[in-house]
């Protein structure tokens, strides 16, 4: 299989590349705006992006150009672009690499997007833990501002785009676009009721587009080399372009791999990531971050595009692929993820808030060999009562690990419960109560 030429990771793959403005320019950076300004209208840029088939790289996979098109056409006031750099989905670490290694690629994408949607202000909402990333972005913005790539009258075009870095403070839920907006507004990061959508009522109730870091990083390339070029890569027409998949877990070479969409999991895991780290075979893998249902070795030949993974009963999500070898307890793994969701639940809606607390306690008991027979039915029921009933997708996400591990590895749950029952029988019984 020929190794595909990286696009997003290309610059940083060059020896000695440190991501400064000068280096980025040398590789052809910051030329895209000149290409289109005055020649291609903002509405047409949106059409270009639709044509390229670019879909959001944050997890939801919504067609980017279509999302831009939802902004009201004749609205006169301010519009905003928010770059979602709140990468917190367990298993995902691609945005961090893009930010720390090639910040200008993202900044150029931001400027192009602002041109297309008519925004003059962009906020990069970066998770608080990315202290280095925030600093690198601030420096890059400073560099770009000094030579006029950001700010007023960009490159003599009269266009204004101000870009600000806004650090989050440790809340996974702020990666959800409306929770991100709430957090940017200085409030608790609770997701908003949709509709209305950010396209019409976003930041400060003004039309807003929220895009992931990787999504934005694709923009310069789409503009420079044309939507047709982009659409030909990967798995057209539904899953075009490359994706940076983050491989973690029990593999020889975990890390970020930029590959065209449509390669199989087997290729990614065994050819790019070097296969299993030991002689233990693969037992399970998560295809798209903690919110994606677990898959089994039977799914290794599923293609890594949005539709195929959905058809297999999971989701491509954030692109975080986690490999688990034989010997990993699936119940334990589901519990670990449930702890994550319990900790990160914002608490707004009843099913998720109370459900996550209930689910995590039941799972803890089962793993600690204090489970009971009725627990499995309770777990299933609770998960069914949470999914689809919550304000945001967090509810669907938090039940994915338990539902999928119950589906594929139910015997492990049963075994743990059986062990609990046995140990209960063997435990000395308390003296019978006197009546």
């Amino acid at each position, binding site marked *: 299989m020929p190794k595909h030429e990286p696009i997003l990771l290309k610059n940083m793959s060059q020896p000695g590349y440190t991501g400064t403005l000068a280096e980025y320019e040398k590789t052809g950076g910051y030329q895209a705006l000149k290409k289109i300004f005055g020649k291609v209208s903002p509405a047409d840029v949106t059409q270009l992006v639709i044509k390229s088939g670019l879909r959001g790289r944050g997890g939801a996979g919504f067609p980017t150009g279509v999302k831009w098109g939802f902004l009201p056409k004749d609205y006169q006031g301010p519009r905003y672009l928010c770059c979602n750099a709140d990468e917190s989905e367990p298993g995902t670490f691609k945005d961090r690499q893009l930010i720390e290694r090639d910040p200008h690629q993202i900044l150029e994408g931001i400027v192009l997007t602002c041109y297309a949607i008519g925004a003059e202000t962009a906020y990069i909402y970066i998770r608080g833990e990315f202290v280095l990333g925030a600093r690198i972005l601030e420096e890059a913005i400073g560099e770009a501002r000094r030579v006029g790539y950001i700010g007023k009258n960009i490159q003599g075009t009269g266009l204004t785009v101000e870009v600000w870095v806004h650090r989050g403070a440790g*809340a996974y839920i702020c990666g959800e676009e409306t929770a991100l907006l709430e957090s940017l507004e200085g409030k*608790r990061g609770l997701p908003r*009721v949709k509709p209305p959508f950010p396209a019409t009522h976003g930041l400060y109730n003004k039309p807003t587009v929220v895009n992931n870091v990787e999504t934005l990083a694709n923009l310069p390339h789409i503009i420079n080399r044309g939507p047709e070029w982009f659409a030909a890569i990967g798995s057209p027409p539904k899953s075009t372009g490359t994706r940076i998949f983050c491989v973690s877990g029990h593999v020889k070479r975990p890390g970020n791999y930029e590959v065209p969409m449509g390669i199989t999991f087997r290729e990614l895991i065994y050819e790019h990531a070097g296969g299993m780290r030991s002689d233990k075979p693969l037992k399970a893998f998560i295809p798209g971050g903690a919110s994606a249902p677990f898959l089994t070795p039977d799914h290794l030949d599923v293609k890594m595009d949005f539709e195929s993974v959905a058809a297999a009963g999971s989701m491509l999500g954030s692109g975080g692929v986690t490999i688990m070898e034989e010997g990993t307890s699936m119940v334990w793994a589901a519990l670990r993820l449930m702890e994550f969701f*319990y*900790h*990160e*639940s*914002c*608490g*707004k*809606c*009843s*099913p998720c*808030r*109370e*459900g*996550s*607390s*209930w689910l995590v*306690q*039941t799972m803890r*008991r089962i793993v600690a060999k204090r489970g*009971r027979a*009725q627990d499995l039915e*309770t777990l299933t029921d609770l998960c069914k*009562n949470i999914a*689809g*009933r*919550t*304000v945001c997708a967090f509810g669907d996400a938090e039940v994915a690990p338990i539902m999928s591990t119950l589906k594929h590895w139910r015997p492990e749950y049963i075994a743990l419960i059986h062990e609990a029952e046995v140990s209960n029988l063997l435990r000395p019984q308390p003296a019978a109560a006197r009546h």
Partner: protein
Amino acid sequence: MSDTTTGTVRLTIDGIEITVPKDTLVIEAARRVGVMIPHFCYHPKLKPDANCRMCLVEIEKMPKLQTSCSTVATDGMSVRTATTVVNDAHKSVLEFILANHPLDCPVCDQGGKCDLQDFSHEYTATGSRFIETKRVFQKEYFSPVIETEMNRCVQCLRCVRYCDEVMDVKALAPAGRGTMTEIKAFGPHPLDCEFCGGCVQICPVGAITSRLSMYEYRPWMLKRVDTICQYCGDGCQITVQTKDNQLIEVNSSYGAGRNNGDLCARGFFGFHATSHPDRLTKPLIRRNGVLVETTWEEALEYTAQQISRLKQTHGADAFGGLVSSRCTNEDLYLFQKFMRLVIGTNNLDSSARYGHINAVQAMRRVQGTHRWTVTFEDIVDADVLLLVGTSITETNPVAGLRVKEAVKKRQARLFTIEATEPGIDSISNITNLSQQHVGVPTAQFGDALLGLLKAVVDGRHIDPAMQNRSSAYVASLSEALGKLNWTDIEAATGTARDSFLEMAGAIAQERRVVVLAGQDILRSAGGYGACLTLLDLLVLTGKLTEPGCGLAALAEENNDQGAVEMGAVAELLPGALSAAAADTRATLARAWKAELPSAPGATLKEMIDKARAGQLKAMVVVGENPVGSLPAHMDVAGALRSLELLICQELFLTETAVLAHVVLPAAAPPEKTGTWTNEEGHVQAIRPAIEPAGESRADWEILSVLSMLLGTPSAYGESKEVLKEIRSVIPGYGLLGPAPTPPKVDPAAVERYVTGDYRQDLAPRYTLAPRRPKAEGAAWLMRLTQSLFHSGKLSTRAKGLLQLEERAVLRMNRAEAGRLGIADGDRVRVSNPRGELTTTVKLVERVPPGTVWFPDHFAQQASELFDCTIDPVTKVPTFRTASVSIVKVG
């Protein structure tokens, strides 16, 4: 089919078709067809939050269940609220909420009126399969009158949202994340807010409850009576709940009354004033210099004898009468009838004299009505609101809620002219919401109004029709305003010309303009003139007669408006008709079948002066406490001591009652029937919730019996009969029930005013106030102000309110105090040539630098410091500002 012209949509709910206005939520549409969709976090007064997920319904063509509280009804929508799927969803949401909910029903005050209980009963199986550990919050002290038990909280956030969206106080904070979210104030500190009780009322479970009635009852044990709050002029409807003749709790139902179910601290927590142990329960008579208990027979017979004797010896005009505006219309009517008919004098006055009469006289003069021409609904619907000297949050908090609603929900433009500065404190500050704020001392209110009027002229905002029809009036005003220069106005008000121009422009150009004038201006020296000038503003801009426009004068006491309408003031007869006019006297005489006194009567201060001079020999004082209310230097006590007969009808033995020869115990509002007229002019019925304390009787009853003992037949069996007479004497009066249409401006009155009447006092009104140099060493301006937690002196008997504010503290600007090295809680001595006072300092944001505020309700302590001026026309006494010096004491 959606009707875009009138904006309606048609949808089906459980098979029932209904047409609703556009933008109606599905849950509201369901309510209209009688389907109650269960919910916790939804509330019609709040923006939908859709967090409880209880209101899920099936909507055709939508794959997932939808929250009906956040879904807008669209044309052709088909909603199902009771399918198996929906019921299972309700069950599951309840199961989730009950998972962490403690089994507190036996000890929870909400038991019996709890949404969670009710829904559980309707939807849930009896068993619970939750065998994990419930999350536990340690119980913490929250506040003196509001209690929280966070284990019961269902995190619907209604309390937080109400405190933010409706009250604009933002004192409640959901702290933490996930299932460990709990409602707190600021960190570990107790709650510090307006204590309106809104969070207690709106909490669907027992997480937030009233401490005042904790553990005292179960809802089904209580008797409920709908009546009106006895404190301020807003006239809120309250539900008084009692058990075994004890006052237990007060709340207000959603949508009820003029207040729409909202209350303030006084209404919610102030009801115990009635049951204070010091209530007078038996008549008292002075024997050998000491007041001793006696029987009604002895007290009333003695009173009647003395009145007869003094009337024979000295004549009717040796009598004076004072009545409180807290009395019912029936009490007030019978009081003035007693004074005018039985005694035969016009020497009578009520506490409307303290300020409200200023507004009423101005309205009568210019627009020919004694009532507002607008309502609370007009305030909510206004495009522009101008607040002048209202201190609305402290004095008329529920009217203040209507202003907040207009600004926050309907984007009305708010302009404020107040003796307050914007700033965030623990109670809301209406000036924070205003687009233009003029912050001036009360003495400069007039100057600010002149600035506004000058801007109307300079900005060419005079209504063209006005210009044509009343050119002389317009010219006179323009000329007078032309003599003022902007430099002086800007210096006097600290506000730039452009701000005035912006305000004037908005007032002229927007459609619905309501001007609210409150106690700070009505009780200040130029109060009457200021009301006239505000009416000039509306006249000049052509707004006075437009629908949805008008002057709204806020009233401090609950029946100030009624006092004026019942003629309980020297210069007015019932119907607020002139006592000086022979024809109105004649009409009333016909109705009463007797002669009316024609000599003009003495007003409040005039009676005090006459008493001191020996010209007044006797006074009947009903519910009023002039010794406590008026400044010390007036020596009201000395004046009253020179009376030969002082009769007091009172709830408590006040500073005035203690000087009386006879004290008659009066029934308190929760103990009697009657009507009150709120500031809008709505006549509302009050109903008794408990028996009168001891042997106390309603004021009108006492006066009725006295009348009979004095030979004037006055047989009223019930207060209804008094009301019947009032209705016959004042035709068209007193329609009870939902708000009658407000009166319209009388064109004849306006015509009279603009064709010449305005000239009487044009010059003094249109002159800037003289700039008084600061008195030597007296660097501060001290003001008597209204506290949100009290009303007059009556509220200082309410144990709930005393827990919120039990004594007077001097409020000072935080930043200024910091500069002077004065810290919160420091003791200071306040003094001027008249007297001194030592008190404690409290630092707040809103007090303007150079000013300190002292609460009116404890003013007896500061009474030495103030002197008193009287308005020449309306005889309103003004005694609420003084120059003082302040020194920190050890």
